[in-house]
């Protein structure tokens, strides 16, 4: 079979992956979080932590905007660029019509595309940014995503003050925002995005909106399997394979599926952003974190720091998203899920 060659040196790999000819670099990142995230094991890893959920604003929605804008400004500042030097802004969040992203884009004044991949938005943005840059359509791209416990819970589930017991497999929406400036390699240095694998939507019929981990696990397993197949590599080729936010139960399911259908054992190499961000035993978040911000702030605040410190050389980030809508769930539909992978190298 022939492999379509899009631009000189730019290659498609296998069914779902691309390899970047001149891997774009991450020039600067911004990771801001709410109070709970900064009380977990990653406390102190973030650029800014707000003392409360309102972040000095009048509503949780405004607080989420403030967080995304802050993350973007931090990333721009660390990259040493101004908004007018950035070609495109790709951003997504969980709120209806991506309202957080649109307001942030209005503040920044950078040409903007809203992207939606639920909690997979972080990797979706990085992959798209790298494609735009490596394809020659942009020199610098700002990517961002955000989520907020107070805005997401009321949209997907119950008011925050409603007294309901959560199931042990339920996840806690992370409050925060992550942003990164991705640029052509001749414009600076930083961690390089070498490959991307875009996922297929998987729907294995899970209907419980609290059980997002189980709904997303098949997508994560499928994307990881396909990624390794497309690139012809093994799990051992990575120092770390970080899934988005499957949390405790979802991670267990993903491992089970990888072993069952692909004979793959990721072992200790496999970590999950939803489990890294909170202390699961102490913080009463049940299975772990979720939300767009989860994989973004863990990657930018924690994993890339470890990479800069020389602890990680090659990282596969597989961000997973449960693409449910409140309406689809109430009408008894199952939860479609997607997972996108990007390879980040030192």
């Amino acid at each position: 079979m022939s492999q379509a060659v899009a631009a000189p040196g730019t290659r498609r790999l296998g069914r779902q992956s691309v390899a970047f000819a001149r891997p774009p670099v991450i020039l600067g990142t911004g990771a801001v979080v709410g109070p709970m995230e900064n009380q977990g094991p990653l406390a102190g890893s973030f650029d800014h932590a707000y003392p409360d959920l309102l972040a000095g604003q009048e509503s949780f929605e405004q607080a989420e905007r403030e967080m995304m804008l802050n993350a973007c400004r931090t990333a721009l500042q660390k990259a040493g660029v101004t908004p007018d030097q950035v070609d495109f802004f790709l951003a997504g969040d969980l709120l209806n019509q991506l309202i957080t992203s649109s307001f942030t884009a209005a503040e920044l004044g950078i040409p903007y595309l809203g992207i939606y991949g639920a909690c997979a938005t972080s990797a979706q943005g990085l992959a798209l940014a790298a494609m735009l840059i490596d394809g020659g359509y942009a020199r610098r791209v700002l990517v961002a995503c955000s989520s907020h416990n107070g805005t997401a819970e009321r949209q997907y589930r119950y008011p925050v003050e409603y007294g309901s017991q959560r199931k042990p497999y339920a996840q806690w929406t992370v409050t925060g925002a992550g942003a990164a400036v991705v640029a052509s390699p001749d414009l600076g240095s930083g961690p390089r995005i070498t490959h991307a694998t875009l996922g297929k939507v998987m729907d294995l019929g899970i209907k419980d909106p609290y059980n997002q981990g189980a709904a997303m696990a098949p997508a994560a397993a499928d994307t990881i399997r396909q990624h390794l197949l497309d690139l012809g590599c093994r799990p051992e080729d990575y120092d770390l394979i970080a899934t988005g936010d499957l949390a405790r139960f979802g991670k267990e399911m993903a491992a089970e599926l990888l072993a069952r259908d692909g004979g793959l054992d990721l072992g200790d190499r496999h970590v999950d952003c939803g489990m890294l961000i909170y202390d699961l035993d102490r913080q009463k978040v049940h299975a772990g974190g979720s939300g767009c911000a989860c994989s973004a702030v863990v990657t930018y605040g924690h994993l890339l720091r470890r990479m800069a410190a020389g602890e990680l050389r090659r990282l596969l980030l597989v961000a997973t998203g449960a693409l449910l809508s409140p309406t689809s769930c109430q009408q008894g539909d199952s939860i479609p899920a997607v997972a996108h992978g990007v390879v980040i190298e030192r």
Partner: protein
Amino acid sequence: MRPVAKKPVKADQRRYQRLVQEREPRPPRLRNACAAFLSGGAVCVLGQALTDFYQAVLGLDRQAAGNPAIATLIFLGALLTGLGYFDKLARFAGAGLAVPVTGFANAVTSSALEFKREGLVFGIGSKMFMLAGSVITFGVVTAFFVGLVAAVIHR
């Protein structure tokens, strides 16, 4: 040869759902049941104490004294919700706080609070019964038909 990606089929879905069902972590059922029993019982004892109190102080008969007692419990539920304690207590007590009338107060108050930012009319006014509405709807529909049948039989 590039492998063709398999589409999940129904059998796959069934198999996965079975797996999830088997492995799903269960809630601490015994602990939850005990907590619900104890806290639910305690709220009802409080309701009874309030009834006795109003009976003695206001000189009402037992049935009439139930009204201010219920109103007091609702007040407490609304207040605890507003102060942000109800959801934390309910995380422990579960049905023990949800089933008594305090749960009804919490459902009303938490919805009203949450949608306050959408304004007095579209927010508080119309969202107040977002969660508690179904209890009223089903209660009234049930009562309508039960009442109708009983009224016809008794005539």
